[in-house]
């Protein structure tokens, strides 16, 4: 890296005044200039260093606020009624309040990833040393940390170098959070600029976490052939003791695998996971298994299959201890961020902890030592499994029928259900002995359990749904490719040209949580549609799991059907949530490796390049968390549009372009300085789709970029028009906005398109060398 501690050591120094012996002085850290690339304009950017770029984006992509609450209750002036954009006692209006809440959400998200990264780096340094090298792909990956290089202007070479990056992130995060205090920022667009800043530092934090764990734990290193691992409820062997790991921070799960390996127990016990810890433990050992996304927590625990539940941090149900207690499965909390009210037994003798858990003396323990978690979890699983005999709380069919008879048809369950599922009629049918309607609910149930808490009769509605769908649930056996990590530099060299020229129609990344409107199958359907169309399809997190939960006629799952290469028609899982920067990193590396743009601390130029040339779109179809908000905002600042599912509208504001406002869609031609109309490419920066069909058409449209060659634009238009005709039943009416010259028109659709162009009085226009940054104009107009 280019920044290191200044350290001076003097053995002996004599002067008239004094004699110094064995003097050592450390004076912090200074830049070390061994990296030939010049430092760009914004190393370690502060809160306002990229504000001009943000405002450029926000001028085109204006916030559309959708308040979730009409009042502000964040200080004792309040509650203040902000209805109709009124101002509260502090002077803040509704628009600024909404962007303030978005900033708060993004700070929470960024803090979660950065805290995660700090914990991991500290743990790995303790285990492997500060000098452990950052190797994320050997000779195939020279640009090991594209986001960090871009933002900070440094090249991390060792685990210790990552501490400097984290220092910067924590500093920025503190400032960002302070801005949400009463009486700070007052302008909504300045809040939005800070939202982008939070997203950017979040991307760096995630990158730090993932490259640290890849390097230290030996996860797949940019490997397109990363092993296929088992996925699904039915993949778990219930004849063995089962340890379930939930969360995101993998060291405790690795402690379990290591203890099993050291004691010859691999194969004797099933180690499986939910959410991102599942991804990361399979990256460490592909014999571990993934049960499914976050929504599977209740159904899997209640099934009684897990004998021990180990939780680390993030996305874990707050009532997990209660649920584990119901099935008599001991719980081990393994993170200081999620203690679950349990006694800290970190420094106790493992024999004593095991004895207490096995005897049921305590329902769970807190152990803040991953190795000790490993030993205790394994020993407890072995001893508890024969006693528990997979004790479950899922009722039998008769109990469901009898329980359903208590249903009053009051609709409280349905009114509590995020997806408005028709539970009352399903209960009525169940009371008559027909469980099929309950079974059908399973596919769209997000597993939140709100229906049960709403029920005045205390009917365990969710457990009834699980019982009705038991056969289907047990048949869930799929494959997912273990998270491969980074994209290789050589892959970027091969596809950079076709992507920038538009010949590969786009890069579509399915990421994020599992708050789906109509079940996870929509992710698999969309991912396969775009892979079939030769887009590059990338996945991560819970969405990567959902993308794998499909089988074709031959029983093959999507990851078996499509290649794991970063290439046209590929379907590649980069890994867990903190692996998302590999997707951003691929876009950055296209600018850097393919287009030879300087990367180092050169954020604005690279983002401008990506916005205008790299047809990448993020899709967070089930986005739920604050982390998803900050991940999305990191992509926005980088010029990558993000589509969310309908629940994503609850993030309170969209960033929408107006295709009907011609003046919004001019860029500079860097060759001449002329301002050139380029059409709404890409039309939106953040946008919630109502249905899968709408999203698919929009994804194809958002992949268009001003820089597309005529061949590339024709290919992209072909997909857009084809999807539009199939899903909307008609030709798109806005084709004239995307056709720049007649060479853009797909040959097979020429007649239909020409008719529209004539009707719209379309005129040919030039294709510029596009940029939004005046400083990049090479020759100014006289």
């Amino acid at each position: 890296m280019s920044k290191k501690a200044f350290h001076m050591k003097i053995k002996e120094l004599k002067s008239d005044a004094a004699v110094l012996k064995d003097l050592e002085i450390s004076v912090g850290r200074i830049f070390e200039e061994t990296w030939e690339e010049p430092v760009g304009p914004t190393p370690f950017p502060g809160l306002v260093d990229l504000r001009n770029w943000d405002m450029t984006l926000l001028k085109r992509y204006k916030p559309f606020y959708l308040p979730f609450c009409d009042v502000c209750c964040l200080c004792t002036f309040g509650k203040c009624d902000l209805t109709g954009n009124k101002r509260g006692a502090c002077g803040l209006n509704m628009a600024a309040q909404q962007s303030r809440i978005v900033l708060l959400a993004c700070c929470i998200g960024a803090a979660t990833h950065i805290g995660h990264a700090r914990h991991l780096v500290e743990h790995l340094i303790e285990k492997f040393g500060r000098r452990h090298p950052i190797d994320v792909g050997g000779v195939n990956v020279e640009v090991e940390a594209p986001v960090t290089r871009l933002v900070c202007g440094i090249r991390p070479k060792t685990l210790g170098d990552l501490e400097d990056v984290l220092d910067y992130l924590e500093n920025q995060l503190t400032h960002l959070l302070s801005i949400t205090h009463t009486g700070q920022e007052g302008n909504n667009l300045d809040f939005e600029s800070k939202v982008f800043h939070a997203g950017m530092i979040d991307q760096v934090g995630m990158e730090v976490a993932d490259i640290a764990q890849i390097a230290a734990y030996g996860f797949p290193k940019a490997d397109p052939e990363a092993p296929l691992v088992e996925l699904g409820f039915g993949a778990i062997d219930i004849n063995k003791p089962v340890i379930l790991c939930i969360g995101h921070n993998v060291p405790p799960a690795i402690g379990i695998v290591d203890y099993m390996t050291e004691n010859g127990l691999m194969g004797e016990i099933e180690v499986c996971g939910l959410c991102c810890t599942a991804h990361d433990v399979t990256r460490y050992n592909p014999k571990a298994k993934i049960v499914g996304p976050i929504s599977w927590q209740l159904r899997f625990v209640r099934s009684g299959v897990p004998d021990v539940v180990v939780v680390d941090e993030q996305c874990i149900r707050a009532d997990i201890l209660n649920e584990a207690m119901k099935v008599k499965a001991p719980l081990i909390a393994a993170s200081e961020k999620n203690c679950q009210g349990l006694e800290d037994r970190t420094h106790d003798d493992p024999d004593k902890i095991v004895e207490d858990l096995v005897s049921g003396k305590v329902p769970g323990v807190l152990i803040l030592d991953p190795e000790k978690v490993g030993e205790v979890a394994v020993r407890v699983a072995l001893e508890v499994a024969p006693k528990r005999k997979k004790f479950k709380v899922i009722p039998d069919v008769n109990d469901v029928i009898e329980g359903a008879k208590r249903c009053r048809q009051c609709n409280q369950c349905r009114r509590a259900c995020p997806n408005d599922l028709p539970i009352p009629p399903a209960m009525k049918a169940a009371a008559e002995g027909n469980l099929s309607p309950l079974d059908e609910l399973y596919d769209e149930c997000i597993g939140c359990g709100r229906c049960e808490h709403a029920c005045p009769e205390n009917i365990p509605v969710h457990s009834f749904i699980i019982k009705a769908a038991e056969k289907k649930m047990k048949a869930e056996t799929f494959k997912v490719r273990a998270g491969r990590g980074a994209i290789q530099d050589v892959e970027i060299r091969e596809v950079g040209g076709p992507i920038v020229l538009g010949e590969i129609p786009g890069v579509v990344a399915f990421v994020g949580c599992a708050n789906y409107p109509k079940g996870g199958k929509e992710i698999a359907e969309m991912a396969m549609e775009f892979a079939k169309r030769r887009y590059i399809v990338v996945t991560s997190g819970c969405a990567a799991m959902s993308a794998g939960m499909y089988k074709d006629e031959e029983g093959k799952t999507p990851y078996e059907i499509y290649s794991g290469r970063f290439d046209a028609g590929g379907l590649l899982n980069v890994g867990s949530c903190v692996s998302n920067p590999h997707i951003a990193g691929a876009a950055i590396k296209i600018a850097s490796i393919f287009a030879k743009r300087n990367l180092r601390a050169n954020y604005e130029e690279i983002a401008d390049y990506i916005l205008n040339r790299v047809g990448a779109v993020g899709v967070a179809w089930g986005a739920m968390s604050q982390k998803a908000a900050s991940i999305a905002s990191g992509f926005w600042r980088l010029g990558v549009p993000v589509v969310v599912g309908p629940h994503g509208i609850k993030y309170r504001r969209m960033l929408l372009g107006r295709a009907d406002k011609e003046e919004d869609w001019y860029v500079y031609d860097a060759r001449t300085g002329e301002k050139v109309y380029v059409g709404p490419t890409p039309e939106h920066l953040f946008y919630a789709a109502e249905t899968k069909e709408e999203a698919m058409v929009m994804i194809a449209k958002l992949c268009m970029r001003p820089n597309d060659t005529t061949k590339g634009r024709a290919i992209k238009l072909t997909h857009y028009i084809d999807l539009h005709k199939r899903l909307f039943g008609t030709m798109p009416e806005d084709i004239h906005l995307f056709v720049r010259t007649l060479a853009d028109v797909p040959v097979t659709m020429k007649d239909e398109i020409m008719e529209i162009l004539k009707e719209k009085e379309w005129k040919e226009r030039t294709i510029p060398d596009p940029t939004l940054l005046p400083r990049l104009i090479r020759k100014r107009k006289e």
Partner: protein
Amino acid sequence: MAMTEPWQTAEIPGPKKALVITKPEVVVAMIKKAKRPLLVVGHKAAEIDLGEEKLIDYLVRLSQKANIPIVATAHTVSEFLKRGFKPAGYMPVVNIGSRLVDPEWEGLDGKGQYDLAIFVGMPYYMEWTILSGLKHFAQHLKTITLDNHYHPHASWSFPNISLEKWKENLKVIIEKL
């Protein structure tokens, strides 16, 4: 059973809540009073079964009877076209929302902004948030929802009513327009 509570229990908004439409004639009067009404129809209109017809079939008749332009959201345009009806426009619901808050928008026909937007057929929480955006940032606009669920952010909303009652109301509205 008529309840003036949000359909999704926790979707409590704030001090300003929709006036409750107690009889369908209120909708008729509002539409007749409006100079430039617009009907925004979501994808659920083609899914909701009202007996022998879908909700969307009622909306086609309503549009034709009162000469109200329809904007179809999501992929609903295909359902209209299958019925031989061409909506005045189609676009994502967030797009129509962002245009309705803009006083300078020229409308689908270039004749200017609308003064009444009637919403129906979106997922409850989506329509809820769009109506919230309009309540706060489109002071020039009145909104009505024709859904059978109470939408507190609209200017006017039916309470939570049964499918049967809903169907009756729609028939009355179409008949009296």
